[in-house]
Each structure stands twice: as structure tokens, then as C-alpha cells.
């Protein structure tokens, strides 16, 4: 399954970069989201994946008795997911605003700074 994971991560990274390279702002955001997902999965994989062993201490015990998945990558990813939501929502609203003002979705038409115009 690790190989499959690696392939998924590669696909997500490739798709993310490809979308970021497009000119459309919406595609750019989708690209960032895909890239973020790929990064999350990469951390998850590199923390070593294990099946059926969530890092939750059994009801009747005070410490782990059996093997458990490493909780640290999970905590990291959880933070990353939440933060990326903040980024995504802000970016989406920004695109909406930008579209309303400059009437375009094309990045190439937005690259002039105040000084140029």
C-alpha cells in the first residue's frame, strides 16, 4: 500500500503544480488545495502508516498496551488541514472580489502594479 500512497502523492503534487501554472485564478486555488492535500498525505506516509491502530488509549487502561499509530504526524496534519481552510476561504473570497473589480479571471491581466497603470 505504501507504493500506492507514493503514487497518489506524486499525482497530487503533479496535478497541483500543473494547476498552479494555469492562468486562471480559480485553477490556481484548486492547484493549491491539491498540493496541500499531497503534502498532508506525504507527512502521513513518512510518519509510517499502520492499519487498525488509532492513537487512542483503550477505555480500561491508562497506557497503550498494543502498537499504535504515531500521533505526532496526525497532530501536524490536523493543524495543516485547518490552517489551509483559512487560506482557501480567504483566497476564494479574494478571487470573487478581484473578479468583481477587474472583471477577469486571467492572472496575466492582473500582474500590473499600481505604478504601472
Amino acid at each position, binding site marked *: 500500500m505504501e507504493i500506492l500512497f507514493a503514487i497518489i502523492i*506524486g499525482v497530487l503534487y503533479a496535478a497541483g503544480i500543473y494547476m498552479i501554472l494555469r492562468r486562471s485564478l480559480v485553477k490556481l486555488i484548486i492547484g493549491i488545495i*491539491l498540493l496541500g492535500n499531497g503534502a498532508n498525505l506525504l507527512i502521513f506516509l513518512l510518519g509510517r502508516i499502520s492499519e487498525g491502530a488509532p492513537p487512542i488509549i483503550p477505555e480500561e487502561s491508562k497506557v497503550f498496551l498494543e502498537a499504535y499509530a504515531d500521533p505526532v504526524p496526525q497532530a501536524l496534519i490536523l493543524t495543516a488541514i485547518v490552517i489551509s481552510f483559512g487560506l482557501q476561504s480567504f483566497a476564494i473570497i479574494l478571487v470573487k472580489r478581484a473578479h468583481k473589480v477587474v472583471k477577469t479571471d486571467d492572472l496575466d491581466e492582473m500582474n500590473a502594479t499600481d505604478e504601472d497603470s
Partner: protein
Amino acid sequence: MLTAILLGFLFALFLVFAGKFFKGKLAVVSSIIPLSLFIYFASFIPRISSGEVIRRTYEWVPSFGVNLGFSLDGLSLLFSLMITGIGFLVYVYTSTYLKNHQYLDRFYAYLSVFMGAMLGLVLSDNIISMFVFWELTSISSFFLIGFNNTSEASRKSALTALGITGFGGFSLLAGALLLGSMAGTYSITEMLSMKEALAGHEFYILAVIFIFGAAFTKSAQFPFHFWLPGAMKAPTPVSTYLHSATMVKAGVYLLMRFTPVLGDTNFWNTTLISVGAITMLYSAVHTLFRTDLKGVLAYSTISALGILVFLIGLGSQGAFLAAAVFIIVHALYKATLFLVTGVIDLQSGTRNVTVLAGLRKVMMPVAVAGILAAISSAGIPPSIGFLGKELTYEASTHSTGLVIVIVAAIVLTKILLLYAGFVAGIKPFTGKLPEKFSEVKMPGPLMWVPPLLLAILGIVFGIFPALIESSLVKPVVTALSKDASDIHLALWHGFNTVLILSIITIVVGILLYLFLKPSEKLENRIGKLEPVSPESILKKLTYFFAVFSKFWTNVFQNGYLRNYVTTIVLFLVILVGYIFIGNSRLVIDHTQLSQITAYELAVTIILIGGVFYTVFTRSRIGAVAAMGVVGLAICLLFVFYSAPDLAMTQFSIDTLTVILFVLVLYRLPKYLVLSDYKMRIRDGILSLTFGGLISLLALQVLAEPVNSDIGDFYAKNAYLMAHGKNVVNVILVDFRGTDTLIEISVLAIAAIGVYGLLKLRVKSSDRPN
């Protein structure tokens, strides 16, 4: 000694608050500062002339070996006396020259900073602190040159000077660091004992080049000389003090200071002789073509600096003696000539030598000062200038190598300098007084006493050379060449070759003065050579540099996001890919891997399918929906592999994002096809390579052992210390609670941003049409 150096800085600071009291009649009071410093340093003369070297060390940055180490030997003493002595006269002179100037207090503050920095420079024993003071002199010089900050030419000259000397400062820093690492110490005194080791070091040449770079820029040696004539835009007291008597000699000082450490090698001597000779001849010839008094003086100063560098290059004891005497000679007569020029400029309103004449009738004392200085500069007995010239000739006739060339160069330079001195010191005062100058008045005594005093000193020292022999000159030669016992200064050396050369110089020089009149025609003629002068070449270089950097910026900072991303990704792919292919063999241990079940395979296929649909669909809503599918598939992967919390978070966040997207983008137009087929293929190849590289890296990392100490710690203590059983939750809200709090604040800020953007009303005027 530290107090003496800091006094200038402290006074400058004091002027910031109390400046307004020093603008009026009290201005002259500020000259107490240089006067007291002069007396303080003069009190060291007996101790220094008996061969003592006074040292003080204060710790500054001991961990880097940078101490404020100061040492006062003959060389430092001579410079300190010049700095404070001429400084005193300039302070006095300025009080009248810039009388009632609205920024007079500022001017004194700059001068004081400069004086402090210059003293620090000549007293430093540590190269790093020397560098700091060196830069401070450049900076104060920048402010003084640009003192008339309403004139564009002033500002430009100030910038040029700062640029050139700043480059030199950089070179000094590089040289200092290199020398420091070669010698293992930053103290010049300690380096003295390692002369042989340093001269044999593989970086010797490089270190010397850096030191030369600093000295040549500061002392205006060819081809860096052009900032000095430009610096003459400064008020005349500044030209006197910084650009003739002290600061420009800092480069000469540096060379002298390092002569016992780095000198006496073939490279050292040859370079100094050639650069010095070119500079002294080049700028001496230039004086013939100037009509501005200050222009004449600027070029003759450069020429004098060239002579000094040349003498240091000769490297014999006689040459050091000549250099030591010539420093005194030059400081006396050149400062006088500058001060005289200042008087003429202020009283008559012009500095053009072609019109100035006959001023002796209206300002006799100034005329006396000017004529005496011209005599000293010409080297006519009994002035000290004669002594300096004799010693210089003596040193050149006793040099090794191409004696004839060396002697010819120095004699020619001296002839031309005689001409320059006469033009500046005698021409304005002789002849018939023109009608328009009949109203010119005599300046106040504070303006004519300083130049007269300096000029008379020049004659007194010439008649009684014993006054400076053991007190000033001998200690300098001792500092440079250890042995100076057989030095004896005298006006009359007997009838020999040197005397014949002297007579030739004086006769030819006076003839030149009588027959060649400075005129604008001549000045225009040399103007034609301007395009090939070092200044124009440098200007062109700066221009091309600007063009190049603009081109470079446009290539890399072109404002297209995708180009930035492409550059970054491409760089990463090539670099990491190169290392990866070169160094590692991919090993996959199949026994370590977990099995693939049918439902995992199904989820994987859905996920990859979703990604492909997201990328290739033409429908925006379709892409968003497919992205949601990808998120949910990832959510399932989390479920399979023991991460229930992640699965829950991913599920809710993914759903929210999709909803938000749909709500916002519903009204946007359809995707447009913005890029052509070729670009998509190119980007596709790049992204696939990148993705493939990441996959390979991931697999490679999996082959390495994992360290889970931190995870074990949390797992062990989650319940015992934090009383929670869901370890991931405990980490987030307890062990790393503060981090989570900050994360929540980030989200809150994002929420405020979103709210603000939604509520923001764009004014119609801001809307592009």
C-alpha cells in the same frame, strides 16, 4: 586616549541639542575642541620622540578578537597633530567664512564627527576598528561635500565620493578580514612580528590588492582620482581640511602603516611606484588646463598624493624621510592656498584665475600668505618646501632600477606643481587690479590669520628644520623602518646633483608660469578627452550595470506567477534530481509494506480519477465537485490507516470548501482556454517530473529508519499527565495548547479578512473602465 577620540563625536551630539547657541558669535568658541586636542597630542611629543609607543586597549567584541586597541607612535602622532592643528585653524576660519549660515551648527557637527573619526583611524591598532573609523570619515565627508544640499552638482559629487570611497572601505574590510585570518590576529602591532610569514602566504597578493584598493580610492590615485575634483563642490574649509590636509592622506597613512607589515616586496614596491608616478604626472599635467582656482588646487593635491604613494613605493629610508617631510610641507602650503582661495572666493565672488589679479592692493596679509605658500610649494629656499623637494630628489636619485625615468617623472611633476602653486598663490595678487575688484574688501582677521600662520610656519620650519627633526620626522621614519638614527635635516646639502635638479625645476617652472597663461581655450581643449577619462568610463559602466540589472530583473521578476513557480520547480527538480540519481539506489523492502486490499485499490482509483477530472474538465463546477471527491477519498485513506481525527477534520473542511466554492463561483463565467497546446504539454511534463520525483523521494525516505521518541513520549504521558485518552487531541489542546491557540487566532484573522472583503464596497472611481 579614548576620550580624545570620542570628544569629536560627543561634541557633535551636544550640537544636536545646543546647536542654536553656536550659530552666532559663539561659533568660534567651538574651536576650543580641536585646540585642546592639539595640545593634548602635542604633550606626547617628548615621549614619542624618545622612541616610546603608547598603547591603550579597551575590550569591544572580545569574542571576535575585535578590541578597541589604540597605539600612538610617530606616524600616528604626526597625523593627529595635523588633524587637530589644521582642524583648529579651519574651525576658526569657518566661523567667519560661514558666518550666520543657517546650518552652521550642523556644519560644525559634521566637522567634529569627521575629526573624531579621523583621529580614531590614525590611532587604531586593530584593523577592524580602523575600518569602522575609515567608513565614518567617508560618511562625514559625504555630508560635508553635500553641505550645499540645494545644489544638484553638490549632491552628485557627494554621491560619487561616497561611492568611490565606499568601495574602498569595502576593499579595506575584505583586506582586514583576510589579513586577520592569515595572521590570526587583527592587531597591527602583533602582525609586525609575522612579516615573513605574511609575505610568503598564498593570499599575500590578494590581501595587498585589497589594501591598495582602499588606499588608492581614499587617496584619489589614478584611476580613482576623479572624485576629488568633484568634492571641491564642498565649502572651502572642507576642501582645506578633508580633501587636502587630512582625509585624502588616510590612504597614504594606511600604506605607511602597513609598510612594515606587508611592504618591501617586489609587488608592493612596483605597484606603488607605478600608480604613484602615473597619478602625479597625470594630474600635474591636468593643472595646466584648469581655470578654477579650486580645480588647480584639487589636481595639484592629487599630484602630491601621487608623490607620497610613489615615495612609499621607493621603500628606502631616504624615501620615507622625504615622505614624512613632504606630508608636513604639503599640509602647510596646500591648506594655506585653499584658505586663501576661500578668502578670494568669498570677497571677490569668483575663483576664475583668468580674471583675478592685483588683489594684493586690497588684502595684503592674504597676499603674503598666498605668496609664501607658493614659494613653499615651488620648493624655493628657505621654505620647508625646498627641504621636501631636496629629500624627494635625493630619494629618487638613490633608487634602484630605472633611475632616469623615475627622476625625470618626479622632476617634471615638481615643475608642473610649481606652476600650479604660482597660479593659485601668486597670480591673483599680482598685476593691475581690475576695475570690478576695486570694491573688494579685506576679510575679518579670523579669516586671514589662519592661512598667514600656516604660511609663516612653512618658512620657519624651513629655516629651522631642527624644530621638526627629532620631534616629528624621526619618529615617523622609526615607525616605518625601525632605524632612523642617522637622519639630519638641513636646508643646505652642498653642491650636488640634487641641487642642480632643484635649480632646473625652479627655473623651468618659473618660465612656464611666465609664458603659459591659464585660459578657457586650454580648458576646453582637455575637455575633448573627457569621453576616455576614467570618470566617463565608470559612468558608462554604472549605466550598463543598471541596464543589465533591469534586464535581469525583467527576466526573473517579471510579474508572472507561473514563471516564478516554473523557475522554483525546475530548479528543485534539477538539483534534487541530480543528487538523487547520483547518490541513491532505490530499495523497496516488500516485507515491510502493508497489503493492498480491494477497497483500498478502489479508493485509490477514485482518487486518481478525481484528480484527473479536476485537471482536465472544462466545467468549473465539475472541477470543484471532483476536488471534493478527491478530498473525501483522502478522508477514507485516513480512516483505513488509523487516523479517525484526521478523517473527521478532512471530511468537514472538504465539505465546507466545496460549498464555499460553489456559492462564490456560481456566477463566474466558464473557463476560458487561455493557454495553447504547447504550453500545456510543457507544464505537464514539468509537473509530472516533479510529482514523480516526490514519489521517489517518499519511497526513498521510507527505506530509512524512523525515530518515534516524541510520539512515544506523548502516547505514554497522554493519560498520566494530561488525563486524556485521544492522544492526537491531547497533543493539540494540552501539550501544544499555545500553538493551537495561535492557530485559532490565525483563523480568526482570516475570518475577519473574509468578512471585510465581503462587506467592502468598491468606489466607482477605483474601478477600472
